[in-house]
C-alpha cells in the first residue's frame, strides 16, 4: 500500500464559500438537488443540509450568538472520513466498498446493489443512495484524480487551504502545530477530531480541527464500528432462540401434549364455539 493519504480540515480558516461543494459536483458530475431550485432551509447559509448520494461535500454553518453581533459563526466542510476502521466497509454484503492503496475507502459503483446497509453503518451519516445510479455513493477521495497524481478537486478549489490534502502523517504534524498555536493564542477549545490513530475507528483519514465539541458541528463525539454489537447481539438472539426452542419442545412434545390435552379438552370445547378441526 502506498502512503496513507487524506485530508486535514482546519475549520478556523473555512470561509464557508462552498467552492469545495461545487468543485466536487463539477468533477464528479453530480446533479444539483431539485433541479437546482430546492427550498431555502432557513438554517443559516446551509442550504445543502446533509451529505448524500449526490452531495459528497457539505459545508456546515453554526451560528453561536448570545446577543445580536456577539458570537461566533463556525463553518466546517464535511466529507467522508475515510475511517481507518470503516463501518461502511465492514457491513457491505457485496464487497462493493473497498480500501484503496491510499488507505481511502471507496464504493465501487458497478458492484453496489443498493442494499443500503452501509448507510446505517457509517457512524457519520456520510453515505446515501444516488437516485441516478440507484447505488450508494459518497466521496471517493477523488480516487480517479489521485491515481494520476492529481490533488482532489475539493481541496484544490479551497481558496483558504481549509481543506489540506496530503500524507496523513504530515497532515497530523501540521494539525498538531496549529492546535498548539491556537491554544497559545487563547483558543482553549481548539482540538483535533479523528487525528489519533489510537482513538475511535483507528483514526480518520479525513480529520478536522474544531473549536468546540464535535456535537456542535453535528459530529458524533465517540464514533464506533457497528460490529461492536455483533457478538452481544448474536448471543442474545441465540439465547432467545434456545429459550423459544425449549418452550416449543416443552409445549409441543408428543407426550406432554397428550397429558395436558386431556385436562383441558372439555373446558375448551364448551367455551370455544369455533368449528374445531380436531380429527
Amino acid at each position, binding site marked *: 500500500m502506498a502512503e496513507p493519504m487524506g485530508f486535514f480540515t482546519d475549520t478556523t480558516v473555512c470561509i464557508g464559500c462552498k467552492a469545495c461543494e461545487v468543485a466536487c459536483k463539477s468533477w464528479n458530475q453530480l446533479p444539483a438537488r431539485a433541479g437546482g431550485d430546492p427550498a431555502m432551509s432557513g438554517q443559516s447559509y446551509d442550504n445543502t443540509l446533509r451529505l448524500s448520494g449526490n452531495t459528497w461535500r457539505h459545508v456546515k454553518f453554526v451560528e453561536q450568538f448570545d446577543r445580536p*453581533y456577539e458570537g461566533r459563526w463556525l463553518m466546517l466542510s464535511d466529507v467522508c472520513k475515510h475511517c481507518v476502521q470503516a463501518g461502511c466497509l465492514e457491513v457491505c454484503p457485496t464487497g462493493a466498498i473497498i480500501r484503496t492503496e491510499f488507505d481511502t475507502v471507496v464504493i465501487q459503483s458497478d458492484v453496489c446493489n443498493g442494499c443500503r446497509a452501509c448507510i446505517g453503518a457509517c457512524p457519520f451519516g456520510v453515505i446515501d443512495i444516488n437516485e441516478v445510479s440507484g447505488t450508494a455513493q459518497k466521496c471517493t477521495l477523488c480516487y480517479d484524480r489521485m491515481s494520476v497524481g492529481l490533488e482532489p478537486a475539493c481541496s484544490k478549489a479551497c481558496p483558504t487551504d481549509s481543506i489540506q490534502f496530503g500524507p496523513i502523517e504530515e497532515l497530523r504534524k501540521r494539525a498538531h502545530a496549529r492546535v498548539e498555536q491556537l491554544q497559545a493564542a487563547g483558543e482553549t477549545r481548539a482540538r483535533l477530531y479523528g487525528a489519533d490513530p489510537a482513538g475511535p475507528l483507528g483514526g480518520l483519514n479525513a480529520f478536522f480541527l474544531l473549536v468546540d465539541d464535535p456535537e456542535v458541528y453535528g459530529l458524533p463525539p465517540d464514533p464506533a464500528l457497528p460490529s461492536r454489537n455483533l457478538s452481544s447481539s448474536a448471543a442474545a438472539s441465540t439465547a432467545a432462540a434456545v429459550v423459544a426452542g425449549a418452550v416449543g419442545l416443552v409445549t409441543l412434545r408428543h407426550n406432554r401434549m397428550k397429558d395436558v390435552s386431556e385436562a383441558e379438552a372439555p373446558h375448551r370445547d364448551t367455551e370455544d364455539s369455533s368449528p374445531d378441526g380436531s380429527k
Partner: protein
Amino acid sequence: MGSNMAECHPVAFRWPMKAKLNGAKLIHVDPRFTRTSAMCDIHAPIRAGSDIAFLGGLINYVINSERWSSDPFFKEYVANYTNAATLINPSYKDTEDLDGVFSGLMQYTEHPEWPYNAFLGQYDPATWQYAATQIGDQGRVANTAQSGEQRVPSGQQGQARAGQQSTPGAAGAASAGTTNMGPPFDALVKSLLKPAPRTDPTLRDPHCVFQILKRHYARYTPEVVEQITGCPRQKFIQVADTLLANSGRDRTSAFAYAVAWTQHTIGVQIIGAAALLQLLLGNFGRPGGGIMALRGHAAIQGSTDVPTLYHSIHGYMPHPTALKKHDTLRDYLTAETLPTSYWANMPKFLVSYLKSMYGAAATPENDFGYDWHPKILGDHSHMATMAAMDDGRVHGMICIGQNPATSLNGPAQRRAMRKLDWLVVKDNWLTETATQWHSAPEIKDGDVKIEDIKTEIFFFPSTQVAEYEGSFTNTQRMLQWHHKAADPPGHCRTDTWFYYQLGKRLKQAYAESTLPRDEGWKNLVWNYDPDPAKGRSEQSTSGDADELELLKEINGFYTDDPNRHLAGFGELKDDGSTTCASWIYCGCFPAFGRNLTAQREPDPPGAPGAQLRWGYAWPANRRVLYNRASADPAGNPWSERKRWVWWDPAATNPPNAQTGAATPNGKWIGYDVPDFTVTKAPDAKPKPGGVGLDALSGTDPFIMKGDGKGWLFVPTGLVDGPLPTHYEPAESPVENLLYPKQQVSPVFKYWARNKEYNQLAKVGDARYPHVITTYRLTEHYLAGGMSRWLPWLTELQPELFIELGHALANEKGIRNLDMVKISTPRASIHARALVTDRIGVMTIAGKLIHHVGMPWHWGWEGLSTGDVVNDMTAWVGDPNVSIHEGKAFLCNVEKA
C-alpha cells in the same frame, strides 16, 4: 472595512487567511456579521453609511494617542511624505466653522444641453488651495466630475470655461499660444509651472494641513462614534488600539474595501478618510500597507485602465470635453497637464494615444487628429444616461455584459429602456434586460402593455471567457493572460468580434462621407486581423480581432516599425514617433513572443513575495505603488522586517545614454521595481525650474502628485470637500449628530428628483423606520447572469431572502422562513425571512434602530427566481464618481 472580502473575494481572501496563520490580527467593520467577520479577531458592527464617523473617530483617536505622539516614526513619515506641513489658503473655512459645509458652497445650475449632472449644489474650491499657489490634480480622472460638469474652477488650471479668468498668467498664455509651442511640448509644460507650496515643518501653523485636520476631527470622539455608528465604544477603541499597535516602523496595517465604501453619496470621501488615516499611520508605499480597492467584475480594473468609462481615455487621461477649454490639442494639454510629477509627460501619452487612434493620418500639422476625437458634454454615466433616456434623449443602447433591468434602480431603468428605439443585448443568457418587454413585473401586473413598447430588442448570444484568449487585469493592477479552453457553442461570438465587426461596418458606412465630423471614422485605425506571418491564424470564429494584435496596440510600438514594440512608457515621445493606446500598459508586451502578462513563475517559498515574474502589473511591473515610502527619508528601510525598496549609495550606474556624462553612484534597489527615479538620491533637492520628476525632491514618494506628497488634505480634485466629513445617507432614520444644520452632503447627485419613481423618505419617516443595506453572496454573481442559470450554484442559495434580527422579527411576528414584504418609497418586494443574530438592532443617537439587509442577485429569469431588490433603490449618487447609493437607505418590513 467596506467590503465583505471572504464572501466577495474568496480567492483573494486566501492571503488574509495566510496572514492569520502567521498571527496577523484581522478586523471587520460591517453592519452584518458575515463570513468575513467569522474569520476576524474583531467584528465591529456599524450602521450602513456611517463609515466616515468611524474613520474620523479613528483619525482623532490616533493623533491624540500616546503611541502616535511618542513614536518618532509617525512624525517622520507624516512630516516628510504627506502634505501635513503644507499651508492652506488662509480664507479656507472648515465644516467646523460653517455648520457642516466648507467655504465656497454655491448653487448648481444644470447645463441646458445636458441637464443630467444632477448635483444638489456645488463648491467653488478656490479657498481650499495651497496658500499662494495652486497644485493641480490633472490627469487623475477617477473623478467623473472633472469632465467639467461643474462650471467653476475646481482648482485646475483652465478648468472650466466659465472659470477661466481665475487662472490667468502662464496658463492663459499657453492656451492663447502659438502653434510653434509643439511638438515637442516641453516649453508648453514648462510654462505651466507654479511656485512651490509653502510649508511649516513644525506642523504648528494654524493654517497648515495638520492643524486643520486636527481641528476638523476633534469632535469625532469615541462617544460620538458610538452615537452615530451604533458601534459600542469599547469595540471602537479595541479597533483603534489594534490598528495603532500594528502600525509603525516594524508593522503595517492594510485596509481592504469595495463597494460598501463606494456605493454612497459620500463614497469617495469614505475612501479618502481611510487614505488619510493610513497616511497618518505611515501605511502607504510599504509592504503590507495601503488601502486595497477590491474590484468587482473579473477585469473591472482593466475596464477603467483601457476604459469603458465615459469621462476618461486610456491611462486615466481626461476625455476631451465640450465643457472645458479643450478646443485644440494645445488647449487640452494646457488644461490637463500637470507640470510637476510624472504627469508632466502627458503630451507624450496623449500624442501616442492619438497616433494609435488615427495612425498615419495623425500628423503634427493636424494636431495628430485631435479635432476628430469625440468630446463629451456632461455626465454620461449610467444613471445620468438612464435619466436622459427616460426623457427620450437616448435612442439606442448596446448592452454588453450588463443587466440593467435589475442591477440598479430597476423600475426606473426599465421605464427608460422602454423609450428606446432599439436595444442590443449581448449576453450568455436571455437576461431580464432581454426579456423585460414581456416579463418585467410592471408588464405582468398590467401596468404597462406590451403593445405600447416600441423598442426593438436584438439578442446576440455571447461567448464565455473560457472560450477565447485574452487578458484580465485584477485588483492589483496585474494583467494575467488566459487561454482558450473550449469552443463556444452555436453562433456565440466574442465581444471583440462584435465590436470589431461593428467598427468595420461603421467605417464602411462613413467611408464616402464628406462631413468633417466623420473624418474621425474615416481615419480610425481598425485593423487587428491575425497576422499569419506571426504564426497567428484565424480564431474559431472568423472575423474576430486577434488578441495579440490588440495587446500590441495597447502596449505600443515605434510608428515607423510596428514590429518594434515599446519596452516601457519611458520610451514614449510627443512627436508622433511612438504609437501607444494606453501608456500605463506600455511594457507588458515588449516584443512579439514576450507577452509578459502570460508569465506564470511564482517566487520560491520564503522569498519576500513581490512575484515579479507572475503576470505583469502596471505601471512598469511595480507591485507596491509609491514604494519609495518603504524607506525612511535617508533611504534606509524603516525596519528589517519591512524592507522593500531602499537606496544603495554604493551602486554604480551606467553613464547617461544621451550625453555620455557619468552618473553619480547610488541607486534605488529592492524586491520590487522602485516607483521612483532610480538614480535620484534621498537628499536630492528639486531642480530649480524643473518639470516633471525634476520638480520633486528625493523624499517625495508620491510621484504622481504635483507636490510629491501624500494628501491628507485634498486641495483639488474633489467636488465635495477637501476633508472627509460625516454626512448622513440620502435616506437616514436620524439627524446628523455632528452637523445638525447639514444632514446630507450638500452636493451629491440626485437624478429625476421630481419624478414620482425616485422619491426619498424624509429623515425619521415613521413609514420607513429601518435601515437597509444590500450586498452579495458568495454563491451568486451580481444580477445573476453568471449564477442563477447554474444549478450547482442556485441549489446553494435558492431563494431571495432578507436578513433581520430577532428583535424585529418578534416585534412583527415574523418567523424564520416567513414571506415578508419590504417597502421603500419607490417600491415593495417580497422575500423570505432569515432571522439571525448576525444583524440586528442598534442604538443610534439614543434611538433603537433595526438594521436589515438583503442580497440583491435575483430577478425573474433563470433557475432560481425572485423579486428585484433594486426595484427599491433610488437614483442618488456620489458627486465625484456618480455611483449610486445602494448601500444605505430606509425601508419598512412587514409579514406578507
